[in-house]
């Protein structure tokens, strides 16, 4: 039992425990941070496995991802601070059973299978191999991944745009009914529409109060959104 093993067990236990706690805490931000911690410990395990680049990349990536996720948490969840106890689950028992079953099946497969053993040599230049591989034999994959990421960026921008081809994307948007197919929950805004009276956003080139607000920067009267009643969460106003 070397130090590596001890560290590994500690880290793996921590990863599992934080992963579990993600779904048990009331506060959304805490859930986000717990997931971050889980990823971080996985990254550290990667470092222990001599996958130094992978571990570091994991930690970097996951940090930023969790920040983004935290933002979305605050935007879309009703209880970000966790001041009230909350547990919004459905098909709970089925999920528990499925999770346990999957774990058991995979563990069984792992234990029953004769796994090959070919540890990486300690003096192997891992990073150098990775670099040569990425830009050598697997250049196509790399490039494809890059293009895919570009497409993702474009897609994300388009999907979350406030203005679609057929008009504002939140036109006729009503909250879902409390029962399936029922009347919309919550107070209905007077005078239709979802946004009513944004007023003075300026700098949009004649789109009126509603319309794609995306990235408009410098708008003065945003504070007035708080008075808009009905529909909070507009998302993505940045500054």
């Amino acid at each position, binding site marked *: 039992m070397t130090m590596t093993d001890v560290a590994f*067990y500690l880290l793996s236990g921590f*990863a*599992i425990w934080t*992963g579990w706690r*993600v*779904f048990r805490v009331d506060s959304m931000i805490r*859930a986000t941070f717990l997931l971050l911690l*889980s*990823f971080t410990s*996985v990254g550290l*395990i*990667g470092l222990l*496995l001599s*996958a130094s*680049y*992978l*571990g570091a*990349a*994991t930690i970097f*990536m996951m940090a930023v*991802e969790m920040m983004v*996720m935290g933002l*979305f948490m605050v935007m*879309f*969840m009703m209880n970000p601070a966790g001041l009230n106890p909350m547990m*919004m*689950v*459905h098909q709970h028992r*089925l*999920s528990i059973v499925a*999770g*346990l079953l*999957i*774990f058991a099946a*995979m563990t069984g497969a*792992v*234990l029953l299978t004769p796994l*090959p*053993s*070919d*540890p*990486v*040599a300690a003096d*192997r230049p891992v990073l150098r*191999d*990775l670099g040569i*591989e990425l830009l050598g034999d*697997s250049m196509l994959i790399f490039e494809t*991944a890059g293009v*895919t*990421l570009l497409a*993702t960026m474009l*897609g*994300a921008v*388009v*999907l*979350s745009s406030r203005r679609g081809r057929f008009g504002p994307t939140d036109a006729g948007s009503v*909250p*879902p009914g409390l029962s399936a197919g029922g009347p919309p929950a919550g107070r209905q805004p007077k005078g239709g529409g979802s946004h009513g009276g944004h007023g003075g956003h300026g700098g949009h080139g004649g789109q009126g109060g509603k319309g794609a607000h995306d990235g408009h920067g410098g708008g003065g009267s945003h504070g007035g959104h708080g008075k808009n009643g009905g529909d909070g969460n507009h998302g*993505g106003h940045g500054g």
Partner: protein
Amino acid sequence: MTLSAILIVSAALFGIGLYGALSQKSFVMLMMGLELMLNGSLLATMGFWSLALGGAPKGQLLAIIIMAVMAIELAIGFALIVAVYRKRQADVTEALETLAR
């Protein structure tokens, strides 16, 4: 730090992630479950590369691809959540029931 131990740990992460993906009502929490699953698979990949593959570079490449997948999935996922919210004001999965029967 045998390969079996790593794989069992990754199986545990995957199980927890599956639990989360299936049981959470909110879209965002669901995404977090998916993230955990991918986390587990990333760990398994790293373990295989380190202990069974002898450091072949293709193993690391696979791990990088997984990370890329993670990113893509998060981005598009959240974009979709925003769009859905704009359209239906839906933030839980039960709200999207117009496809029923």
